[in-house]
């Protein structure tokens, strides 16, 4: 069968179940394409030979009741994978090989999936362009020298470039939705507490969520169904009734009330984004949804609050990387000297910057003015959402304030880089689910995404809305395989 890698997850699963394809064939196809795609730099670690072994094993003793029967999947290198190097995109974990598996990845292996390798990401998931990775920047398959977004940049690039049929990323402030939008794929950030954080290298514990990234909404729903489980190993995992998202998926969204928040019309937003948004509103109407103007008054405070909360938590979460138990250690004359050199040489500039911000906002004399203030603002942002959800079922916004930009373009201006996440961050602060779907192109032919934000635990609803709109939009990614010679 030709063009295996062009098939969606659902098609691959169907073909394997109908024995039209073997796991070995599928795995080989994705490995071949991955091998030809080194220029994208999507992988940090490849695990091809053991993937092929696993595929052969699967084919020998096929269990076709599984949801991901022999499907090869590469995952973000933030998930700890047993006996496979896990770096979080950092020099400090360059040689770290976990002896354990994250719950989320275990869930997908339990459904028959096979690990292809570990995908590039911003260092410790801190970035919006995948330029902070110790393993180099990732190319966007859409165009050469274009960032794929971040921090799940390798994941987005790998799905868009068809190096993996689906993947999982993590999203702390937009790290699934923003790269999904930049590469023309679907990405879901689930409700906080939906997917276990056990075994995921932590960035900001109160915001981090793992989530699926796929070529279409249906694949995304299937993957979400698999990775979202209650886990007693994560104290913030929430035990709620989870839907069978892929089975319950419907395009019937008639009568759904969708809110349009006026605060997302920000200064300097390109006209193309505004037009895309209007088109999206029209599509939603076409699907039978009711559009309601809403206000989320504290939206513009979300990003400043985020840049206090996330670095504060990160400064503490990253304290364990000290050269004592695992990872990189620099030579030092004494313990403190070793610490300071290890962390100075082991962490990249952006990570150091955020650790410094976090340390500062928690330090004596500044806690109330910054950290506590940000927690209060976080409450106000959550209140905004609680208030509008009395009137609407979901909210529709652009995913990002711009399309993908060139590598290096924003690298030296942290604030302009941070502004990438202006539409995605409020969702993390409020712990809500949000999905980005590709919805059009800008004048350069770069993809643009729309974001649908749901109520907590209401993933099914936003998946349904996305599913319905996806059909109307009928997006086609303009990827010409420029990197394959």
């Amino acid at each position, binding site marked *: 069968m030709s063009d295996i890698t062009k098939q969606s997850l659902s098609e691959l699963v169907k073909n394997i179940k109908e024995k039209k394809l073997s796991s070995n064939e599928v795995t080989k196809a994705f490995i071949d394409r991955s091998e030809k795609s080194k220029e994208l730099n999507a992988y940090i670690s490849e695990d091809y030979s053991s993937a092929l072994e696993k595929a052969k094993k699967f084919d020998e003793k096929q269990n076709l009741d599984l949801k991901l029967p022999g499907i090869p999947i590469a995952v973000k290198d933030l998930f700890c994978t047993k006996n496979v190097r896990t770096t979080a995109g950092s020099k400090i974990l360059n040689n770290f090989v976990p002896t354990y598996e994250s719950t989320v990845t275990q869930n997908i292996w339990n459904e028959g999936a096979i690990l292809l390798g570990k995908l590039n990401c911003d260092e410790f998931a801190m970035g919006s362009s995948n330029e902070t990775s110790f393993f180099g920047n990732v190319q966007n398959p859409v165009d050469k020298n274009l960032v794929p977004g971040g921090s799940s940049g390798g994941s987005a690039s790998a799905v868009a470039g068809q190096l993996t049929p689906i993947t999982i990323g993590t999203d702390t402030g937009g790290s699934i939705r923003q790269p999904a939008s930049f590469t023309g794929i679907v990405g879901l950030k689930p409700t*906080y507490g939906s997917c276990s954080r056990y075994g995921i290298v932590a960035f900001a514990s109160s915001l981090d969520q793992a989530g699926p990234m796929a070529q279409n909404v249906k694949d995304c729903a299937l993957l979400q169904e698999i990775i979202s489980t209650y886990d007693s190993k994560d104290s913030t995992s929430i035990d709620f009734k989870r839907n069978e998202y892929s089975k319950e998926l419907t395009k019937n969204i008639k009568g759904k009330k969708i809110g349009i928040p006026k605060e997302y019309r920000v200064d300097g937003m390109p006209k193309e984004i505004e037009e895309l948004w209007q088109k999206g509103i029209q599509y939603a109407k076409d699907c039978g949804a009711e559009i309601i103007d809403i206000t989320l008054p504290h939206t513009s*405070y979300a990003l*400043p609050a985020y840049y206090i909360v996330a670095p504060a938590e990160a400064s503490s979460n990253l304290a364990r990387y000290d050269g004592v138990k695992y990872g990189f250690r620099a030579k030092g004359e004494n313990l403190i000297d070793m610490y300071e050199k290890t*962390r100075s040489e082991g962490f990249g500039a952006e990570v150091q*910057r955020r650790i*410094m911000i976090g340390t500062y906002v928690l330090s004596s004399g500044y806690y109330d003015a*910054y950290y506590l203030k940000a927690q209060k603002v976080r*409450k*106000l942002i959550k209140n905004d959402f609680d208030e509008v959800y009395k009137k609407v079922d979901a909210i529709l916004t652009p995913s990002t304030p711009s399309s993908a930009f060139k590598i290096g373009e924003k690298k030296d201006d942290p*604030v302009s880089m941070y502004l990438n996440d202006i539409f995605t961050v409020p969702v993390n602060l409020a712990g809500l689910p949000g999905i980005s779907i590709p919805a059009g192109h800008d004048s350069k032919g770069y993809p643009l995404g729309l974001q649908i934000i749901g109520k907590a635990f209401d993933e099914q609803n936003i998946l349904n809305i996305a599913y319905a709109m996806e059909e109307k939009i009928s997006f086609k990614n303009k990827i010409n395989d420029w990197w394959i010679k």
Partner: protein
Amino acid sequence: MSIDLKTIKHISKLSRISVDEQKAEKLAGDLNSIFKFIEKLNELNTDKVKPLTSVAETTLKLRSDEVKSKDIRNEIIKNSPQDNEDYFVVPKVIE
């Protein structure tokens, strides 16, 4: 408010990341522009707002008091940059 080099040195010490003069200058510049952006929060009066630390609106679940973890010393120590099979080894601590 502005973050001076003394402050940078102080937080570098707290965060155990060494910073030379050049790096300190760069960090001071970056942090000042970031904090200028963050200062926007001061527009809001939050005196009567209760801080939100976790969006998970449940309470802590408790586990039972059982020993499940076995002796995995080899597994634990395997990844360490320096050890002597029994202990993690670090450069001398100087108070």
